[in-house]
């Protein structure tokens, strides 16, 4: 089964979905964990997968969709390879987080919440990430980058761009 709805083609293996559900004993109560596992795998929760998980767990599709949309952690659409989570909390804000966001928008031609056309980046301004000492800071795929500036941000993006087209290795986080 191929998902081509968003311009990307992801092969979804139904047996694999069944296997994930099985790992959690097909328990109705494990639905959030199952969706998390699936999101880790695909980067988002494709519609067809949602239906399949519902069938496996015996949860109606309408309820599955309710769970999916209830939690902001779940995404219904594919996301970029690098998720640029730029902190716009109070501390980062006063130290110029807005400039970082503007720079990204300008450079990558995307708005908040959007993906770049090459599906490499997703811009996601977030509230406080709890590292105010490093303000302004950003988090990319789980790694923290502190004391940023607009220029450093551009550098970082360039670095990711190289990575993205090349190997899967991520740049060393700035300390």
């Amino acid at each position: 089964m191929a998902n081509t709805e968003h311009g990307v083609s992801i092969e979804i293996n139904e047996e694999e979905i069944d296997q994930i559900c099985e790992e959690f004993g097909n328990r109705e109560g494990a639905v959030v964990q199952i969706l998390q596992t699936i999101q880790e795998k695909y980067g988002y929760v494709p519609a067809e997968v949602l239906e399949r998980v519902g069938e496996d767990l015996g949860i109606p599709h309408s309820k599955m969709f309710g769970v999916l949309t209830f939690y902001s952690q779940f995404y219904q659409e594919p996301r970029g390879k690098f998720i640029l989570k730029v902190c716009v909390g109070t501390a980062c804000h006063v130290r110029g987080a807005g400039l970082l966001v503007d720079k990204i928008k300008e450079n990558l031609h995307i708005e908040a919440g959007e993906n770049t056309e090459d599906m490499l980046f997703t811009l996601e301004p977030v509230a406080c990430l709890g590292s105010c000492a490093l303000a302004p800071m950003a988090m990319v795929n789980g790694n923290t980058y502190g004391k940023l500036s607009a220029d450093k941000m551009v550098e970082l993006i360039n670095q990711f761009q190289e990575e993205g087209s090349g190997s899967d290795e991520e740049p060393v986080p700035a300390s």
Partner: protein
Amino acid sequence: MVKVTINGKEVEVESGTTILHAAEKAGFPIPTFCYNPRMDPAGSCRICAVELEDSKRTVMGCITAVSDGMKVLTESAKVHDARKTNLELLLLHHPMDCPVCDCGGECPLQNMSFSYGASDSRFESHRNDEPEDMKSDVLVFNSNRCILCGKCVRICDEIQDVHAIGFINRGFDTIIGPPLGKKLDCEFCGDCLEVCPTGAITDRFVRYQFRPWQMEKTETTCTACGSGCRMLVDTESEAIVRISSKEGLGPNEGSICVVGRFGFNYVQNKERLDKVYFKKAQRLVPGKWPEIMPKIADRLKGIVAGGSGRVAGLLSSRVPLEDAFLFQRFIRQTLRSNFIDSGARRGLMNMALPLAQATGTLRPLVDHKDIEAANVIVVLGGDPAAESNITGLAIKKAVRKNKADLYLVHGHDVSISTRSKEVIRALPGAEADFVRILRKALASGGTLDIAAKDGLVRMGASPEGVERLISDLKAAKRVVFVTGRRFHDSETGLEASEELVRLLVDQGWISSEGCGLFPLTELGNDMGVLMMGGTSEWLPGLLDVSNAENRKVWETHWGTSLEVSGGGIREILSGIESGKIKALITLGENPFEYIPDAGHLRETLSKLELLVVIDHRQSEIADIAHFLLPSATAFERGGHVVSAEGFVQPIVPSMAYWGESLPEAEIILQLSRQMGSSLPFEDFSAITAEIFRIFPDLSPSTRNASHFQGGTGEIVLALTKAQPPHKAHRESVVARVGEWMKSSPSASTDPAAILPIPEEGFVLQLSKSINHSGTFTIHDASLMTIEGEGLLRVPRQWARKRKLKKGSCVRVRSAHGDVSLPIDPVAGLSDREVHFPVHFADERIQALFGKGFSWNSRSGVPSSQSITVTLEPVL
């Protein structure tokens, strides 16, 4: 029992009762939005707040159980304040667009705001201004007006068990709708529309076309199927605007199916017959009643003068008791013939014959409440949700609420398959053998011998599944068998029904309370028409016509002698063929719908000297009539019908007769007067009075309205008048059934009746769709919007392999012809079967079945059709 004091008044209630119910008992109704007596309480709207006098706390009445000595205030200043504040919170986002909202005028939110003076909110917030979800052709979702009480989601989950809609998003952004932002795809019962306490869900068919206070409401009974739903017909200037319901109303307790709720437009369709027509130079031309009736009467008189048994009558099983009673008397007494039959033969006769003989009644031993309370439910050859929707709800409730074990024994999956513990596939034609194997195994301690296993495998059923069924049956206290259309119409339907009754007797399920047999009736008055003598074998009261003593009863009463020889549709057709029957009167019945080979049927009917068709619409038989008389529908006339549960309920007119149409009984009365006959009925009400006088147990009855409070806060009063029982009298049944067991030994059937599974190709069968009823609904604009064409249901796996989608065309070829049809790939069909909705089975489809046609040799029931076909994608 605990004692509670509500507003100073002491009442005693069962422990565990909610404050809401206790207050109701004390005479202090509490307002509600999200409460519904049929569903689990949610406590989400907070409007039922009440004060506990001792602790001064406010609690929610619908979810708080009373405790002994509790003192509750339902109308204190604190309660008032709490409710007002809660209302303000509910009105936070709610747009004040009542002037353009369809719900305005019958809106509980509006009424409550009016009562509590909360016309606006103190809290500052933005009004939601989301566009309405107009994707569905049936319902419009307006999230701005929604107060998130969740009633729609709960009724879809808990009552309908369809789960079509749910909560989406979180917090302020929460909306209600179908998943993934898709178009609503469900059974379209409209229950969500009914329970919505605001205008968040509205009816797209009549959007902006009415104001509630300008409509008149008429409570009547739906005649589409045997569920006997009570419903409200909302009319404006004698035109039907919509059909609604009321919580707790009737046997359906407020739920109505798609056909009942949306299928009424055919009665005000411009194409409906509004004039009398007669044949002149091979064409039907309009005439006038006063000129036409004497002509028909004269020709009938001429034919009857030639001898008895020269006229035949066919009668729809949707007509009320009165019309059936009058029609059969007209045929038997005035026209001196016992060639009479009704559509009930197809739907019920195979089951009705053994039931009447063995139990003396057609009334069921169990009703929906017994189904809900059953431990094991076995559905044999039927699709309850499609054939008798409310019975389907009872079955779903039994599974969901009471954890009943549901077994479906059927050729293919139907909507209740997903709720069943096991689907045992048994091919059409194998019903009798299946029941015989089951009976034998149960009688011999529950083991299947080798021959039984072989038999099961041959009919496509899994022996392991049957073994599980047997062990569940042995452990169960309350067992209910539900039989459907496929079971009744099968070639061996009569033998299967007989064997099933024997099985129930064997196992003592005839005598144990809560156990029994529930035949689904597909048309509104199947049972009533049989009780009134609407077929050749029975005089009114299910009296066997071949018994002289029985005949004497009615001969004395009517002062006439009665014909014995006669017959049903099989004998009528051969009588016409041989020239013995010269005239045929049809009353809403059209044999073209179930007799294949229209050409041959047309040729047979052309031999008639006189064909009088009484119907409300054009049809194949109407086209060849000598006289075509327009009849009024159930929305324009009165009468009584008997539901599958045995309730005798009135139908009440809500609009004037369409054009020059008249009720069937009125037409027959006029005709008999013209013929100088002595049918002693002044008018319609005299027939009703006569029926209730002769059959006191047929007096009107309905499900006791024990639900005291409706979804709109209206009080639904419990019925106070004693009602005659609707179920069969168990003691009388038990007293009688032993005699029948002795006199009716198990007859063997030919296992060859089972249509073999073709090695290549498919078995094509006609089946009922949930969205249609008979063929009248294909003249209904609303139902045609929901399902507008006959799609051939093919196995999903087969379509996927060929990359065929819904709507792709395939050529269907049988030995008798071929036709190109659009497909609908569905899950749950075996690799070798395809289905086509019977409602759309026109001559092209019927032609596939050829001339071959089978009748049950003993009951004369035409069997449902199936034939081997091949499919070939059309590119």
